[in-house]
């Protein structure tokens, strides 16, 4: 182990000093162009689509950059107007994109594409839906060796590295890149977080579990709900109904204790608890396990939602922010839940909230008009 300057040692996380590192947080993943009908129109009937940019791991870097941390994001982008749209979007948050790998456009998209998703925002009994068009994407062709992780983690220095199950699921070579990056980050003394984010359209449970199990030894902070732990890591949760209308916190806790026993290197486990009352009304809270105890966030009953996409990433980025800033566990969980709630108050995957708003909401600030 090299001689590293650690600022804090909280909840078993030894975080490197900010002043010695070029990045507080670096994330690895895909950013897609999202096309959504205005309001709650149907995809198949809409004459107009609104354009957004987002992706699980990208949204985390985006939020943390807005919160004033030195954030960076790594991906593989096509040098065409869609890639440029993502570049502008990323730059607007202030994040560093100097390590993004750019590939030329072949003029057709036969070989390298920017992924698209068509998202319809549900209402009432009609749920939100997503249609992917993400074949042959540039990021899915990422392979070990494309990024010089040693240079980044040892010379530029990174306090916290984050990726997740969406990136890992994109292709076999992406799974290899995730393993390569996690290992390099771990060996360089960087905190590693991973959002399981199981997506059944991208891979099978069996495949997910075999790949993800090999990654967990390098992970310090693991994010995932009961379904993620079941399908991406093969853990059983008792007493969850398939519609997720009612969640058993006790069952989740039992499962997390099993996870912690199986992987003693994992210091923190967290998830959001979402109960779907209707398309636009959810009960929302979060739970985090660390140091042998569970902490529940403030609960948002009947939270009115504009767009649920990005809520989980909002929680994840809020939690990471709290841990990086050395806050108490209760504050970290509350900050994550508050940010997740705010992220769902605006359309689009990436947050539009400010840190001041998040802090106000987590302290119980009301939605009374601010004058």
């Amino acid at each position: 182990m090299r001689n590293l300057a650690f600022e804090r040692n909280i909840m078993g996380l030894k975080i490197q000093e900010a002043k010695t590192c070029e990045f507080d947080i670096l994330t690895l993943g895909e950013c897609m162009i999202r096309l959504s009908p205005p309001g709650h129109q149907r995809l198949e009937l809409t004459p107009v689509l609104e354009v957004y940019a987002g992706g699980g791991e990208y949204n985390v870097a985006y939020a943390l950059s807005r919160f004033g941390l030195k954030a960076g994001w790594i991906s593989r982008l096509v040098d065409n107007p869609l890639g440029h749209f993502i570049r502008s979007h990323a730059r607007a948050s202030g994040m560093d994109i100097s390590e993004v790998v750019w590939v030329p456009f072949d003029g057709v998209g036969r070989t390298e594409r920017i992924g698209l998703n068509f998202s319809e925002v549900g209402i009432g009994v009609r749920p939100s839906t997503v249609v992917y068009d993400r074949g042959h994407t540039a990021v899915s062709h990422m392979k070990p060796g494309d990024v010089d992780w040693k240079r980044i983690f040892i010379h530029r220095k990174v306090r916290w590295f984050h990726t997740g199950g969406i990136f890992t699921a994109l292709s076999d070579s992406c799974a290899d890149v995730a393993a390569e990056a996690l290992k390099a980050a771990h060996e360089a003394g960087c905190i590693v977080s991973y959002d399981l984010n199981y997506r059944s359209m991208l891979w099978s449970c069996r495949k997910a579990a075999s790949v993800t199990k090999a990654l967990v030894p390098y992970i310090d902070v693991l994010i995932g709900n009961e379904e993620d732990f079941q399908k991406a890591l093969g853990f059983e949760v008792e007493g969850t109904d398939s519609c997720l209308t009612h969640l058993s916190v006790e069952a989740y806790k039992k499962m997390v204790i099993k996870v912690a026993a199986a992987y003693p290197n994992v210091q923190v486990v967290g998830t959001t608890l979402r109960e779907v009352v209707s398309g636009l009304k959810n009960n929302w809270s979060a739970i985090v396990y660390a140091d042998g105890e569970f902490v529940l966030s403030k609960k948002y009953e009947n939270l009115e939602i504009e767009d649920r996409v990005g809520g989980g990433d909002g929680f994840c980025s809020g939690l990471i922010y709290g841990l990086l800033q050395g806050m108490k566990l209760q504050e970290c969980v509350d900050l994550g839940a508050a940010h997740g709630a705010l992220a769902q108050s605006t359309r689009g995957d990436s947050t539009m909230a400010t840190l001041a708003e998040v802090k106000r909401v987590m302290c119980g600030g009301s939605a009374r008009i601010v004058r």
Partner: protein
Amino acid sequence: MSHGLNILPKGAYDLISLGALVHRLDPGIIPFRKASQCRMYVSGGEFNVAANIADCFGLKTGIVSAMVDYPIGDLIAERVRAMGVHPFYKHFKHNGVNGPNMATVYSDQGHGVRPPVVFYNRSNEAGAQLKPGDFDWNEIFAGGVRWFHSGGIFAALSETTGEVIIEGMKAAKKAGAVVSFDLNFREKLWNIWGGQKKAEEIVARIAENTDVLVGNEEDLQKGLGIPGPEITAKSKLDPTAFIGMIDAVVKKYPNVKVVATTLREVHSKNCHSWGAVAWAGGTTYASPTCELDVLDRVGGGDGFASGLFYGLLAGESPEEAVKLGWAHGALLTTTPGDTTMVTVEQVRSFAKGGSARIQR
């Protein structure tokens, strides 16, 4: 073929601009007195140059400016970042009631025979409060800077802003940068506090520190106090009158090595003839001329300046640099907003004489 400029081969920044950031409200073709909706653009003559050179031409640029910490400031800062421009801000706190403010520019687009109308709300503008000593130029230029730019709009904001320009220019010169100034003479702004006399006095002191001067005949007359042309131009696109004034400019300011301007003849709101010309080291270089179908005229001049500076920074000949400026300015009038939405490939192709035929 030399332009006489000594351009550093590299530096942490290819160009750093100094000026106020503004937001522009644009109700489209509806005049403000009947408007119910506006689009919002982020602008600033000096910023536009830095934004265009970063986003379209891919060089590293920065903006030195005032930033107010309130939602309008946040919006502006976000667009600055999105264009890839590195900010160097002096921060101001908004009191929630009357400022300090980020200035508002109101501009409708006009239509046909009805010209666009521009007016401002620059009351209690943070940018106008900038004064010498606010910025640590040595630190800003520490990694090297190849080009420093400012303009006549920022110079006109208050008694102190012209002094900030002179301070920045002197520091930039010391750092080895080429120094440019876009005269952009705005009578309304000067009339608020200094009038014509102050304008000439301050702009003259700025010109003494300038290598590359951008401005049309009117700018040269009113901003720089150069006597009007003796020859009457045949048309607005005829550069003879402008060129006739250059001798007087370089006689008064022997430090000036390049003088450039756009030539625009407005037939109707959407229909302009467009050309550009530069004088460099005793030779005049004229661009081709073209007819423009204008979608949004604001930013065309800044578009020319940024293309010209890019060309010179990239080591192109003055002739080629003028063409790139002319082409970029022309393309900028085809998109809404004040900053670029085109690519360097499109600029080079149009400069070569490309057509508007669909590219498939």
